[in-house]
């Protein structure tokens, strides 16, 4: 009662503790002057404990609540649940089902967990069949006679791409928050060793680990479903590893976006845009066609390609695995390829499936985000031959060493 009264009068715990410590000290002095034997002792104990309490409160106020608890609370709110203590359940909740579907782990799951993981995987990622894709050719080059259209080798590099899965949407702020809350910036095993000394520099505006434009380890309210931006290539790669995926290669990205049609004895026919040959500004968030900032990843559905992969063009650029190289160009620093254009991309010619730009891997730009990929071979048992080797048409994914699970094994 006395403590509550003092606290009420002082209007804060810190002031109350300070007042109690001061009163204790005063009691010690008065008791000593009065010649009392026990009063200075009792008042000294009160003064010391109150002083210690005051220092503790002050330190806590300076440090603030721990990042982990703060963000974990935010995740619990946004994701609709807190940690359960069950690793598989936690991974399913965090969207790390791609890890659970690995042949090495799958046998340890219950039938219900397998079904949920498979359904989540099918909903989140689209299958892109194996095939060839022609890289490094632009329509303007052919128009202006800079390339010989009759010479496939001169038109660009013909790259064979194995079957793979690609996220239907760019990674959102909400999804990345789970990675931050799970201590992703402290799990050095998922980071490239060359960036270890610099991981501590990947902080948000308040100095806490996270994307550049976040604050206090969290994004701005209302941005849950907006694409994540402000992350370096290394953060993108670490996140992809954490969810059991990887970044797509430049060839994979173009394969998914341009939907090449294989022709006998000829280079594949590829689309300029996921929806066709002509730019339609209502289908992508580009400069002059959108609000001038990122939009939620489910917007612009008209720009979806045949495999229901959204926003391949527009909204944010996407990091890829490849190093950026272009004949005749001298780069000021090593760069990684980025694909897909962003909300502020000015020219339509730079918002095509064929256009690739470069960015320094440590830069954390306002318009570069993440889209993850995963090779189909990752779901096969190590001994099984790849579909490319078999020249087989893409079909349903059969999970390794597992009894058939009717609906849940089909990821198509």
């Amino acid at each position: 009662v006395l403590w509550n009264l003092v606290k009420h009068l002082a209007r804060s715990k810190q002031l109350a503790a300070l007042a109690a410590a001061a009163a204790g000290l005063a009691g010690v002095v008065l008791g000593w002057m009065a010649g009392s034997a026990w009063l200075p002792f009792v008042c000294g104990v009160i003064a010391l404990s109150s002083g210690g309490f005051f220092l503790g409160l002050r330190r806590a106020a300076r440090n603030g609540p721990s990042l982990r608890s703060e963000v974990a609370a935010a995740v619990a709110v946004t994701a609709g649940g807190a940690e359960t203590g069950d690793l598989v359940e936690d991974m399913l909740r965090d969207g790390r089902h791609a890890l659970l579907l690995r042949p090495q782990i799958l046998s340890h799951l219950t039938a219900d967990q397998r079904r949920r993981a498979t359904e989540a995987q099918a909903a989140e990622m689209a299958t892109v069949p194996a095939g060839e894709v022609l890289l490094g050719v632009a329509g303007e080059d052919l128009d202006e006679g800079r390339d010989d259209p009759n010479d496939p080798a001169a038109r660009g590099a013909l790259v064979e791409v194995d079957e793979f899965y690609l996220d239907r949407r760019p990674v959102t702020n909400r999804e990345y928050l789970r990675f931050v809350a799970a201590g992703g910036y402290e799990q050095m095993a998922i980071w490239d060793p060359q960036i270890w000394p610099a991981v501590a520099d990947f902080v948000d505006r308040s100095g806490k680990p996270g994307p550049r434009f976040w604050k206090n380890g969290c994004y701005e309210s209302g941005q849950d479903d907006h694409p994540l931006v402000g992350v370096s290539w290394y953060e993108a790669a670490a996140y992809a590893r954490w969810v059991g995926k990887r970044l797509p290669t430049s060839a994979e990205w173009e394969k998914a976006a341009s939907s090449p049609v294989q022709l006998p004895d000829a280079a594949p026919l590829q689309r300029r845009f996921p929806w066709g040959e002509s730019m339609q500004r209502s289908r992508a968030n580009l400069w002059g066609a959108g609000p001038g900032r990122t939009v939620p990843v489910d917007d612009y559905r008209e720009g979806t390609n045949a495999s229901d992969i959204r926003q391949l063009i527009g909204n944010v650029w996407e990091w890829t695995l490849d190093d950026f190289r272009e004949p005749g160009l001298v780069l000021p620093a090593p760069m990684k390829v980025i694909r897909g254009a962003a909300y502020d991309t000015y020219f339509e010619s730079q918002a095509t499936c064929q256009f690739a730009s470069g960015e320094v891997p440590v830069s954390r730009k306002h318009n570069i985000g993440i889209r993850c990929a995963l090779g189909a071979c990752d779901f096969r048992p190590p001994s099984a031959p790849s579909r490319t080797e078999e020249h087989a048409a893409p079909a349903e994914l059969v999970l390794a060493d597992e009894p058939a699970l009717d609906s849940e094994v089909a990821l198509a």
Partner: protein
Amino acid sequence: MNRESAVYLDSFRLAQYSVQVPCYICSQGNNWDAELCRHCFAPMALAHQATAKRSPPHMIATIGASGAGKTVYLGMLMDMLSRQPDCLQILTRGGFSVNIQHTTIAALARREFPSKTPNEPDRWNWVHCQVGSGKRRRAAELIMPDMAGESLLEEVDHPHTYQVVRSFLSRCAGVLVLIDPTKVRAGNHDQDYFTVKLLSYLMELDADPKRGWPSRPIALVFSKADQCEECFFDPAGFAQTHTVGLWRHCQERFRRHRFFAAGMAGACAYRDVAGVGRVRVPLRVEPRGIVEPFHWLVQQVVG
């Protein structure tokens, strides 16, 4: 045998030649059919267009060191405002006004920066345009030249070398001063000194406290901020930290000034060009902060 022929006296033509048409920039007389002013080399079309308007056009200068990005900034600004008239709308007057927009955008689309503006004033690009917005009932007329940085420097160091620079800066209502922040950040103070020189030159031209440069609006733009991202978050703070001389000069001398940051390229690389050397090329075009300084300046100038 002699043939008779009739030669008519075009007296109306003689009359036209007898009356001098003043150049809109330097006010010197010219023949009525001159293409460029024979004194300052400004297009005479400006004078003809201006006399046809009830209210005289406002003049806005874009100045800065050579290579600061004046041509790219002006060309990009014109193209953006003519394509997306959300806050401001620009309509060009005369074919010559489209040149800078055309050459800049064509170069950027090829992933190149436009070639350097020549020092000869008769080869500069001029823009005469009408600028308006939904809020303003009457559109304002603006004249903006793309002056070469080296000519500016020459005029500042040796006054009266370039009459057109002197005349234009004396009469213009506001300036956009472009500064390259990448050089500033690298510890190169040339940009700082050159900008202070330019601003001092403006004060020399007209130091009247009410109508002169102390009270005219000045937008100071860090033009390549895409290569120096800290500019975007706090341009004034960047100026205070990295261009201390310029910052103090503005605080002391100019009542209406503001710092901005603008960027055009998302990333840049280099290309070796035969006979030229290593040139910078934009890897992609993502304009940021281009319209804001101009919008502020137009608000200050036109009201």
